[in-house]
């Protein structure tokens, strides 16, 4: 495995161009003696979007944090762009994370910083000039249609707006991998649709590899049945019977991965749990 310290001129995501964006190999983790994830193995290929479904409390968020190196597995190995995040020193992880964007369940915005400073946080840490930060923050906020909130504090925003600011913060450095942790959780249907449209736009406009966690089936199926039209800049429904080929599913149940496949395979599965879950 290459040492990140000697790879200054090549983006971390390009050092191993053939490696998948994310790879889990027989990963298990427990908390206080309770098994949360058991023997999880799957892959997210480059440019692919994988939707991780499962009932609440099944370990979906834990899996996402494992992928970002925020948790370490008890056993198994996790690779991101070819780097084994489950064995990397924290110092190297900080650099690898510059290529990963994550949207937390509740947004996790810094409550004492303005929207501008939240979105531009990563750039400020990299000592990017103020003018460039302003320009890139405005651009990212325009993507989520919130450029008028620049000077507001997170407490002055609605739940949906906070989630959109979190998306802007995640995408400002144009990451090569995006991790969404229930981006529509707790939001009303209209706001949820707005958020999912942004996820679709990000997927189809930039082709970013993504892992999206949700327990809302309507969001998952919206993601596979819609596309972003670059010419008209609108979200369009795909023709009946077709789905986005770069988007597929993973399903967690009781800490185990019970499904890994396409939309077609998922809806035609004979598995009793899946039938019940999708009903």
């Amino acid at each position, binding site marked *: 495995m290459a040492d990140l310290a000697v790879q200054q001129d090549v983006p971390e995501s390009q050092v191993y161009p053939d490696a998948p964006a994310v790879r889990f190999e027989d990963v298990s983790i427990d908390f206080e003696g309770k098994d949360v994830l058991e023997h999880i193995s799957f892959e997210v290929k480059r440019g692919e979007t994988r939707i991780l479904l499962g009932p609440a409390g099944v370990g979906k968020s834990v899996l996402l944090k494992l992928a970002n190196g925020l948790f370490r597995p008890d056993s198994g190995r996790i690779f991101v762009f070819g780097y084994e995040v489950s064995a990397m020193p924290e110092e190297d992880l900080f650099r690898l*994370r510059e290529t990963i964007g994550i949207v937390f369940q509740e947004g996790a915005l810094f409550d004492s910083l303005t929207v501008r400073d939240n979105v531009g946080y990563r750039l400020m840490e990299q000592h990017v000039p103020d003018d460039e930060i302003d320009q890139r923050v405005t651009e990212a906020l325009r993507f989520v249609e919130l450029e008028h909130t620049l000077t507001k504090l997170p407490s002055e925003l609605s739940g949906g707006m906070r989630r959109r600011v979190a998306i802007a913060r995640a995408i400002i450095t144009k990451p090569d991998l995006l991790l969404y942790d229930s981006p529509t959780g707790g939001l009303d249907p209209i706001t949820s649709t707005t958020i999912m449209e942004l996820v679709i736009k990000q997927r189809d406009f930039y082709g970013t590899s993504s892992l999206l966690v949700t327990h809302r089936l309507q969001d998952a199926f919206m993601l596979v049945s819609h596309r972003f039209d670059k010419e008209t800049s609108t979200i369009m429904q795909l023709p009946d019977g077709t789905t986005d080929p770069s988007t597929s599913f993973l399903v967690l149940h009781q800490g185990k991965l019970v499904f890994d496949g396409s939309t077609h395979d998922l809806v035609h599965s004979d598995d009793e749990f899946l039938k019940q879950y999708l009903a």
Partner: protein
Amino acid sequence: MPLSSVDAAAKRGVAAVQQYSLLSARSLGNLFRRPFYGADIITQADLIGVGSLPIVILTGFFTGGVLALQSASTLAQFGAAAITGQLVSFSMIKELGPVLTSLMVSGRNASGMASELGSMMVTEQIDAMRALGTDPLKKLVMPRIVSTIIMLFFLTIVSDAVGILGGAGVAVGLLGQDASQYFHNAYQSLQYPDILQGLVKPLFFGFIIATIGCYYGMNTRGGTQGVGRSTTQAVVVSSVLIIAMDFVISNFMIGIFGR
């Protein structure tokens, strides 16, 4: 209590000490690694140092005053009321200045650090910071440790000075002692080991306040209730450790300098 519970509690205790040691060591190690968060150190120094100044001045003044009041009457029984200044300066500089200032700063800032970092933990802001490529030990913990150590040192000097003035106010204003005699005794009786003892203590106490506050903050679990629990524990543990460390340092310094 079943043996397994004792065993589990002991393991938890050892793990907590290990985590605390790691947090402290890594945070201090970060002082010498880039990026250096100088602006955060200044901000924290302002919050911790300047913000604590009013309570430190008030505590120091009244402690010096009551020390003069209580000791003067006892000393008078032996005809030694004239050395009230010496007793006040000795007590303030060697013990009460560092300890009371630290307890005040602990009550104000260890709790503040635990609750602030604890809130950030339970709202995933610390995770977000790590995910955005920033080491929270570098950005949040290191500046708090450095600024608490530096500012507590100066706050203790302020407290000592104000305490001696408070004692003078009582000795001269209420008890009718001679001001020149009070200050002469207060100054002449002091030796360098006394000053050294009084100035070494806040360095250790500052370290205890910041590391304990940050440790409990960074290990907060369980929502707002967890934040409350961390805050209380941070104040209790740092206060007890300050007093225990005071005994250790005093014993050590007396052993070396003989006073």
